[in-house]
């Protein structure tokens, strides 16, 4: 399996570490309350299909990526720099 890092190009899966669902980018306010934090930390959708995840290119350029993949076919549909995704989220408010 290969992931196409936006910086390094196609790289073997062994260079990457999965760091969880991409919803981890939506960190709540520190004072958002236990309910919101519980939701953020513990509850995930578990779809049979397309999912966005954070992957870390630790054995490569060191970038954090948002990788879109299909959990059924294992197809990698795309990868973007997590910082770009986060910036878009911030800009969108």
């Amino acid at each position, binding site marked *: 399996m290969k992931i196409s890092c936006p*910086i*390094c*190009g*196609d*790289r*073997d899966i*062994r*260079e990457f570490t999965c760091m969880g669902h991409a919803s981890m980018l939506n960190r709540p306010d520190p004072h958002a309350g236990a309910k919101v934090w519980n939701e953020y930390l513990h509850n995930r959708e578990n779809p049979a299909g397309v999912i966005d995840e954070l992957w870390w290119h*630790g*054995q*490569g*350029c*060191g*970038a954090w990526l948002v990788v879109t993949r299909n959990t059924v076919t294992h197809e990698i549909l795309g990868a973007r720099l997590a910082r770009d995704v986060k910036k878009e989220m911030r800009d969108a408010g």
Partner: protein
Amino acid sequence: MVKLIAKSAAEGLLPVEVAGVRVEEIVAPLASLSPFQGQDAALGKALKKAHGVVLPKAGQITQAGEVSCHWFGLNHVMLMGAAPDASLAKVAAVTDQSDAWCRVRMTGEAARDVLARLTPIDLRDAALPVGATARTDIQHMSGALTRVGEDVWEVMVFRSVARTLVHDLTTSLETVAGIAEMRSA
């Protein structure tokens, strides 16, 4: 006071030569440079002015005489062959890494075959031409691989795994030489 003796990372381990491929250690000043936010262009300017080298793009190295600059990751380059000028610290985080890495040069026609047994990346001309560098996995170690000449490669890993690198390179060298010998027999 105890007098400590400075030892290079691969002291006593290199050079090694097997079937025309030579591995030797490079001992030179090393400093990591990470531009502060939005200071990439300023770092490029300062680098050029102080050391004569251009800030390398992702996956590239640049050179000016004895000094070279290797791309080393996201917002991260490594200045090699010269102590970093003080002006660089105004626009980038500068850290001396001279003793933190083991840097070796491998020269020989079979060097690519030797490396191909140790790393998952594509080492062919189209993917890694002369002047290209990659951060990658080198036999489970986090390292950097640079093509400095047609048959000249540089390999860097953390100093703490220098002995493992030399062992892995030597084993691969012997295997590649053995396969060549079998084929010619």
